[in-house]
């Protein structure tokens, strides 16, 4: 019909009008890869030079996330928590009082033709699961000195939970989320930031400040580690809960 053709042409015109100036602008930015590009001119040198001395963390990305830009990370974990609240606030006709569905069943295909989980997938996942969990915990523990940290552990733990739910069904993996303590687990990340921030206020005078010199090494490391545990546990539980809600 004519209106369909006109609509398609108008849409393509919109995309071209937005896309061509965008691509031209982006392609003519100063080229990446040189050490004196404008991107590096502001604060990156200071973070690279003095990062280890000021924060005590050889992993500069974790140093930026938890120390130099700690407020950004604080607000971001609150945003993720709010996303979970938004999903839980949707009206659901088939849920109980406390938010669990009335019927269990297999993960994929409960409302379609039943899908059999292949035995190869089952055994491989079941064998690898403890090693994956161990890897996530090891990344969390070494997060300040090698690639790793709070968000990475949360991602791997959430992926592990998702895969386990696929092969075991939600009934058995839901218990991992500890229904009684679940509100505390979900709010673990903002809570950790608030507590460590209050501790920083007692020690240094401003919210989320850390002792300036590396002499107070133990306190600094403990604060950083507490933040990372909060991010890892809170992030993993929130992602797992989001998956369970979409999956019904």
């Amino acid at each position: 019909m004519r209106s369909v053709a006109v609509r398609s042409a108008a849409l393509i015109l919109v995309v071209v009008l937005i896309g061509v100036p965008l691509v031209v602008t982006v392609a003519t930015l100063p080229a990446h890869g040189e050490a004196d590009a404008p991107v590096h001119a502001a604060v990156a040198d200071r973070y690279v030079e003095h990062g280890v001395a000021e924060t005590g963390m050889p992993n500069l990305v974790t140093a930026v996330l938890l120390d130099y830009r700690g407020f950004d990370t604080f607000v971001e974990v609150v945003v993720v928590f709010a996303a979970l609240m938004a999903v839980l606030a949707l009206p659901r006709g088939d849920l109980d009082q406390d938010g669990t569905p009335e019927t269990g069943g297999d993960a994929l295909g409960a409302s379609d033709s039943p899908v059999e989980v292949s035995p190869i997938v089952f055994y491989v996942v079941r064998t690898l699961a403890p090693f994956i969990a161990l890897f996530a915990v090891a990344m969390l523990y070494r997060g300040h000195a090698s690639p790793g940290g709070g968000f990475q552990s949360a991602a791997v733990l959430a992926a592990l939970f998702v895969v386990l739910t696929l092969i075991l069904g939600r009934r058995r993996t839901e218990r991992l989320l500890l229904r009684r303590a679940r509100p505390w687990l979900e709010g673990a990340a903002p809570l950790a930031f608030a507590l460590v921030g209050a501790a920083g206020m007692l020690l240094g005078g401003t919210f989320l400040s850390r002792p300036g010199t590396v002499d107070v090494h133990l306190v600094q490391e403990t604060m950083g580690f507490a933040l990372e545990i909060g991010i890892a546990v809170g992030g993993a539980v929130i992602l797992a809960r989001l998956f369970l809600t979409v999956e019904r």
Partner: protein
Amino acid sequence: MSALFDAVLLALLITTAVTIARARDLVTAVVVFGLYGLLLSLVWQHRGAPDVAITEAAIGSGVTTVLFLVAVTRTARTERR
């Protein structure tokens, strides 16, 4: 040599993105999206960003792809029109 690897990676990225756009079957689109996440993780590693690579591999190819797959199973399997 690494410039050639770079060029191949980027060409593959664009090809998979166009495949996702053109696939009628939504399960195909989601599976190719999982491949897209994996290619992106390789791009991160090549750019010297191992933290981002780990997170993208776990979240992009793991959580997001399974989320999409579950949503497709619960709703429509093919795209009309």
